[in-house]
């Protein structure tokens, strides 16, 4: 066995496993019963899967925009890894949404062929936080800190869902999100504790992101109905937990939580209702352009 190179050492086959450690990849849904519980409203469950799936899909798209644009190559890979984790969560959730809906739509149809009002993501994830003029690295980190903290709390509770598919997806997501939160927290500390300039950028970034926090804890009627049946998580119940974790990071970074008011609701509707910001159409145009220009294209 050669030890000159770890990859050579680990890829030598002394058994039938051709890949480095064998494929060894778990399909989190392989042993899961996909039957839909008889007491659940299918439309509600499909909508809930869309909500959680769209959160992951849209932030994944935003993070992917950093590919080749991050401050360092290492950070480029880190953000792409996080984006791919979220894309994996989105794929499972959108696939489940399609199954539950029962109208023959698969994950691709849901990702590429829906229009803006049909997307159910919270507006936090669609904001342009860079690398373009809409933001910068600090804004991206601030958003990731908030999102990963919130979603980790949500998914942790969702592991107790009576829906076995949601529970299994959540169990996988928890491990991924713990890393995303850690990555964002580490960068928050470093930007806040770096130079006066980096601290100023981090402070501005928090002020940009903060108005979008209240929406994360505002339950949609669908979420409330499913939460009452122990299928979904009522996001209002996550607030103290999320506030506490973010508070710890900000305290360690010696940053004050901004006191920015939330944006005015659009006729009392939020992202969960399909009401989005002006950042959403260009994002969807880029996400969906290829699939819509060349229907059924494969590569």
């Amino acid at each position, binding site marked *: 066995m050669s030890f000159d*190179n*770890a990859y050579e050492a680990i890829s030598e086959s002394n058994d039938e496993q051709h890949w480095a450690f064998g494929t060894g990849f778990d399909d989190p849904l392989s042993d899961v019963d996909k039957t839909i519980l008889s007491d659940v409203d299918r439309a509600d469950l499909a909508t809930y899967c869309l909500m959680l799936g769209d959160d992951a899909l849209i932030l994944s798209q935003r993070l992917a925009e950093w590919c080749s644009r991050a401050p360092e190559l290492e950070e480029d890979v880190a953000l792409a*890894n996080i984006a791919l984790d979220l894309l994996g969560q989105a794929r499972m959730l959108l696939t489940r949404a399609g199954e539950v809906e029962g109208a023959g739509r698969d994950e691709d149809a849901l990702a590429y062929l829906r229009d803006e009002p049909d997307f159910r993501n919270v507006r936090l994830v669609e904001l342009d936080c860079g690398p373009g003029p809409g933001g910068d690295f600090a804004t991206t980190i601030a958003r990731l800190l908030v999102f990963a903290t919130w979603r980790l709390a949500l998914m942790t509770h969702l592991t107790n869902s009576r829906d076995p598919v949601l529970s299994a997806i959540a169990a996988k997501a928890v491990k991924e999100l713990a*890393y995303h939160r850690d990555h964002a927290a*580490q960068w928050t500390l470093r930007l806040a504790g770096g130079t006066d300039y980096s601290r100023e950028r981090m402070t501005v970034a928090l002020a940009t992101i903060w108005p979008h926090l209240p929406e994360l804890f505002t339950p949609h009627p669908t979420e409330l109905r499913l939460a009452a049946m122990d299928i979904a998580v009522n996001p209002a119940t996550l607030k103290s937990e999320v506030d506490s974790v973010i508070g710890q990071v900000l305290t360690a970074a010696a940053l004050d939580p901004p006191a920015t008011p939330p944006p005015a609701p659009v006729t009392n509707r939020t992202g969960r209702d399909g009401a989005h910001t002006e950042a959403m159409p260009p994002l969807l145009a880029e996400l969906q352009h290829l699939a819509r220009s060349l229907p059924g294209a494969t590569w």
Partner: protein
Amino acid sequence: MTEPRSSWPLYEVFVRSKRGLNHVHVGSLHAPDPEMALRNARDLYTRRNEGVSIWVVPASAVTASSPDEKDPFFAPAGDKVYRHPTFYSIPDDVPHL
């Protein structure tokens, strides 16, 4: 020649595989500090299930032998066949020797 783009220090990365063997050098990376170097190493070098443990070491802390010293350092071992345990028979079921 322009300044190198990264002002971050270089770290050498060692990964221990699942087989419970030694930490093995896999490459290097830039990071602002050791904690971030660990995280970058996780993202860059353990993406495909390669590792269960990572060490990062500042490249500046590595003292390396020089190519100029190759002969005095290594050539004298070349003819000492008695240093290799080739005179023993090894049972088939003893791995990693």
